């Protein structure tokens, strides 16, 4: 009996020691006069390495601030951590969608005072990033690197099919896609020209919409999915192409496609001839598939609206400070550096190949030239380039619509116009009710 008790006690002590050591690692006391802050970012692997480099430069300029960089953070983690009181001091999110939510409920602090104190005006940001980092007059975030979407195409495959130059209209795109598709002897898809299924890689309504001149809201701010003709056109076009492939065949093919952010990416592996993707892919291809002969171009546009050609969709990363941070002054220093320092932004641009978000950085001569990347810089500057509206319910509007699009593409919707009107109603209802009376 006593032996059992001893063993149990010993085990308990061992476990307790291990437990304490395993979870006590994070907080080391800061030296006098200095601060330890944590920077949460969504980047991983190679891209995270670049961020750590940039942060190291910052630490050299501010020797009394030590920054711990944590990668792989997504919005779910941010949202949960702020509520649990365990979030970092500077937070980076890939999706500007949540700006509305963060700013309106005070999760991220209002930066107006800090900006005034350091004499920073938000004109230094181009219009789109300036828009998606504030909500209703409250600026709780700054932009840090933007994303621009365009068309990637495999030059070898195009040449082999006798096609010259990228497609510029949707009917050309359809034509190209059909010519570039290759099937296996048993009928299954081997190489797909372009995959229009929503949810695959970067396919989302928001990314394809601008090609059709489609807007999410009308002038009065109400959801315009059913009233703006671009959406219906887009959905019809997608469905026709999907039916040509065969919905089941396309789903089966998707299951042979590698992970989007892995070296088995279908486009990089030659399983996909053309793909809608962001400007970061240029760096990924350089690192993972250097032999791939590819080209980039703006998205093809609606045949009826040729003037749109050269524009595209943009959104970007946002950085801010959660209200739970205990070192807001030091966090602001890092934030200011990441968002406004031209050297830092250029370094990030060269390493990660995202678009820099200050006018100064955009025009910097230190950006390493790359003709494929230049295409995206041009799209970014095009006046017709669109971004998604910032709402207080975050990306709920996009999620609702994408859910509908998926259903439509699977052939489960018989009344397109009615379905679109229904989604409009849902979006408007959510927006009207958010933050108070009814629910989510």
């Amino acid at each position, binding site marked *: 009996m006593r032996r059992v008790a001893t063993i149990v006690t010993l085990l308990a002590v061992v476990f307790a020691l291990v437990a304490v050591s395993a979870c006590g690692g994070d907080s080391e006391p800061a030296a006098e006069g200095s601060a330890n802050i944590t920077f949460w970012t969504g980047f991983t692997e190679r891209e995270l390495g670049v961020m750590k480099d940039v942060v190291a430069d910052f630490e050299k300029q501010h020797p009394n601030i030590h920054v711990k960089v944590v990668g792989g953070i997504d919005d779910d983690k941010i949202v949960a951590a702020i509520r649990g009181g365990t979030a970092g001091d500077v937070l980076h999110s890939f999706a500007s969608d949540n700006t509305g939510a963060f700013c309106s409920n005070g*999760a991220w602090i209002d930066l107006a005072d800090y900006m005034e104190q350091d004499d920073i005006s938000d004109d230094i940001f181009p219009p789109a990033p300036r828009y998606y980092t504030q909500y209703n007059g409250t600026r709780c975030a700054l932009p840090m690197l933007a994303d621009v979407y365009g068309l990637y195409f495999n030059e070898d495959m195009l040449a082999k099919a006798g096609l010259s130059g990228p497609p510029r209209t949707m009917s050309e795109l359809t034509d190209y896609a059909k010519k570039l598709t290759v099937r296996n002897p048993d009928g299954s898809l081997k190489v797909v020209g372009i995959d229009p299924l929503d949810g695959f890689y970067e396919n989302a309504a928001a990314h394809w919409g601008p090609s059709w001149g489609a807007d999410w809201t009308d002038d009065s701010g109400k959801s315009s999915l059913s009233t703006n003709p671009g959406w219906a056109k887009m959905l019809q076009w997608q469905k026709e192409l999907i039916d040509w492939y065969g919905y089941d065949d396309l789903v089966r093919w998707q299951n042979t496609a590698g992970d989007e952010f892995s070296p088995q990416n279908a486009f990089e592996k030659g399983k996909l001839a053309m793909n809608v993707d962001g400007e970061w892919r240029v760096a990924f291809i350089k690192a993972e598939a250097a032999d791939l002969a590819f080209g980039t171009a703006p998205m093809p546009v609606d045949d009826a609206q040729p003037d749109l050609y050269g524009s595209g969709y943009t959104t970007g990363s946002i950085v801010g400070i959660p209200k739970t941070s205990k070192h807001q002054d030091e966090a602001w220093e890092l934030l200011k550096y990441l968002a406004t320092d031209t050297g830092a932004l250029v370094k990030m641009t060269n390493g990660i190949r995202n678009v820099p978000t200050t006018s100064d950085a955009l025009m910097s001569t230190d950006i390493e030239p790359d003709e494929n990347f230049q295409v995206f810089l041009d799209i970014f500057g095009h006046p017709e380039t669109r971004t998604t509206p910032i709402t207080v319910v975050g990306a709920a509007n996009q999620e609702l619509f994408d859910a509908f699009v998926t259903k439509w593409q699977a052939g489960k919707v018989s009344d397109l116009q009615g379905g679109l009107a229904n989604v409009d109603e849902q979006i408007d209802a959510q927006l009207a009710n958010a933050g108070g009376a009814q629910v*989510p």
Partner: protein
Amino acid sequence: MLERRRSRRKAAWRRRGTVFAFMSPWVAGFSIFFGYPLVMTAYYSFTHYDLLSSPHWVGLANYRYLFQSDQMIWPAVSNTLWLMAVAVPANAVFAFGIALMLSRARAGIGFFRTVFYLPALAPPVAATLGFVYLLNPATGPVNTLLRHLGIEGPLWFDSPEWSKPSLVLLGIWGVGNLMIIFLAAVIDVPRHLFESASLDGAGPLQRLRYVTLPTISPVILFAIVIGVIEALQYFTQAYVASTIAGGSAAASAESANALGYPLQSTLFYPVLLYQQGFRYFNMGYASAMAMLLLAVAFAVTLLILRNSRRWVHVSGAMR
């Protein structure tokens, strides 16, 4: 005389003290982690609460949204009901069937028993991952084998019609625990009952129906109750399957949106509750959903137990 009474009273007090001391951990645990939260869930269900600011009262608004406007509720409820109606009997039938076969086997019982029990040991996440891979419509072994037989296999986890049956298959694979319980019960059926039945001219099927089944009816009840309870809490397999299958090619950041993939066919009630409460942090609304779940769990369990008195035989040998 007085001495004895006093000592008896002292003993009674000491006994009560002992009981209290022994029960105290559970009493404390029950109050803190069950009683109090139950009351608070009810309270939160009448508020709008996102954990960033204090809850603010909205009356019946959450319930109104729940019963009238939320388009996700109906899929969640019907999926969970479907699971109860299909998975519970399927598991019971397979567990019983295998147990029956095992009980009749002459050789290698130990080996077979281990084989059928082993999958039940696989951690649910690992098992689900394995099945998602196995049932991969293009490259998974199952469809590859079917193709060799000339059959074009379905899209399994990628198909709204086949995703729930795929989950049921996963459940049947893991039926080992239930099978062991059925096995013990089947073996325990007294032989003399069989013999008198065959004397009366009963064939094997009739013996099954009139001897075996009634005798093991408490275990059947147990299987049903456990199955229903599990269906009402079903989360892990649905979460893992939908996020893996749904996210198989998509951007990693939006895994929460893949819940219910494809087309909300794997959106079960507990999954929706989790999404509302811990992804969107609509805690007031999620609490309203939790209250509904409580009511349904209560009602269903009561229904089964009340109904069971009719067909469950509690014989002398089993309690």
